[in-house]
Structures are given as structure tokens and as C-alpha cells.
């Protein structure tokens, strides 16, 4: 797998969630992603960026346009230094929420992308990496 280009987008305030969506949309278009896949990806970005801001107390979104043989994809990592997720299994249950939302953020985002990786421990922040291929 080779990285064609990469960058970082800060997620500190609410407006940054909108910017993260717009960045993801622009990059997905560069990859030549189909409208349906692009919409799914941007929606997942919205959910995860909001989590980073609300639960992680702010963080960053790293992006990479990656190439794997014939496939081109967009890989995004959401990083924060927040409290982490104490019960991962619970957090990955549809409808469970710690913040008064619908509890569809993490599980929903996972369904919308091709690859999903979550790395967290209490007190050590959270990293979610997603990838969508064209």
C-alpha cells in the first residue's frame, strides 16, 4: 500500500466538524469516489469528528490518499487525548450512548466505511481509523 498524499486537519471547535466534512468531501472527489460512497464517507466523518470534539475534548483528523494495487482509497484517523472509552463493547452497541445522542455514531460510522479500527484505553485517548475504497 502506497500513500499518494497526506495531511492533518484540526478538530477543536464545532465549526471544525463542518470543515472536516468538507475536507473529506474534497479528497474523496479527488479519489474519484462514487456519490453514494462519498456520501457515506462524509457522514461517517461527521459522526467521528463530532465524537472527537464532544467526547475527546478536541483532536485532529489525519488524512491519507492511499493506493493498493488498482484500488485508491481515503484513509482517515481521528485522534484525541481525551478520557478514552472505558467499555469498548458497550460503545460498539447500537443505541448505547454516554452523551445523550442516539448512540449511532461509532456503530453507524463503522457500517458506512470499508475498514474500521478503534484503539482506546481509559485515560489514554482514542484513535479511530477508517478507510473507504473507490
Amino acid at each position, binding site marked *: 500500500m502506497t500513500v499518494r498524499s497526506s495531511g492533518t486537519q484540526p478538530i477543536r471547535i*464545532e*465549526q471544525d*466538524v*463542518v470543515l472536516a*466534512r*468538507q475536507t473529506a*468531501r474534497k479528497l474523496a472527489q479527488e479519489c474519484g469516489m462514487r*456519490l*453514494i460512497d*462519498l*456520501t*457515506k464517507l*462524509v*457522514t461517517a466523518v*461527521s*459522526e467521528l469528528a*463530532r465524537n472527537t470534539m464532544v467526547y475527546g475534548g478536541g483532536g485532529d483528523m489525519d488524512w491519507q490518499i492511499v493506493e493498493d494495487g488498482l484500488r485508491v482509497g481515503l484513509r482517515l484517523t481521528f485522534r484525541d487525548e481525551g478520557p478514552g472509552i472505558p467499555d469498548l463493547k458497550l460503545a460498539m452497541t*447500537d443505541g448505547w450512548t454516554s452523551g445523550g*445522542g*442516539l448512540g*449511532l*455514531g461509532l*456503530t*453507524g460510522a463503522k*457500517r*458506512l466505511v470499508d475498514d474500521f479500527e478503534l484503539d482506546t484505553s481509559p485515560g489514554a485517548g482514542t484513535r479511530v481509523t477508517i478507510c473507504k475504497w473507490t
Partner: protein
Amino acid sequence: MERIPILQMGDFLLVTIQVDMHDQLALTLQDDLSERISRTSARGVLIDISALDMVDSFIGRMIGMISGLSRIMDAETVLVGMQPAVAITLVELGMTLPGVSTALNVERGMKLLRERAYSQ
């Protein structure tokens, strides 16, 4: 402060969402709408999202809330113009907006509102 305009057409309120909303804007719209319904005794609310290229769980929840609270205040809500890609994504996300009435476009939505509002 940035706000989404609410238009009044007879007994109905019309909201067209055209900007990429951040969360606070969505919450403000929810407050503004309930306030307007109560002030104008509107019989229905039409929300046009044909310009939205994405609806996430937050906006989805806002739509559900508006629909629910307007019903309590005796007004019908119709959501119109959802794009195919947005609809497919919402279903995949697990949000099916039960209880929210929908129509293809503003014209059909108004027709539906009139039927509902005046049949009671």
C-alpha cells in the same frame, strides 16, 4: 448570530436548509421553529432538505425532534427532497426516521400538509 430563515405561507411554515449545518445551528433552528409554531399557531411545517448532501445522526435527530414537538403543538411536519445518496446513507446508519412524514418535493409536501391539516 447565524440563523436558518423560517418563512410563513398561510397556515404553514417553510424551512429550506441550504447550508452545511454545524450542530449549534441545528439546535437554534429547533428552538426557533417551536417558538414560531406557538406564536403563529401554524398548522404545519415543511422542511426542504433537497440542497443537503449529507444528513448525519445529529441532523436526523433534530428532524425527528422537530416532527415530534410540532405534533404535540398540533402541527404536522413533512420532510421533502431527500437525495437518494442521503437516504441510502441514513438507512445504513440505522436512522429510519419513524413517524416523520416525507414527500418528494415542496409541491407534493404542501399538498400533503393541506390534506393532513384540514382533514382533522
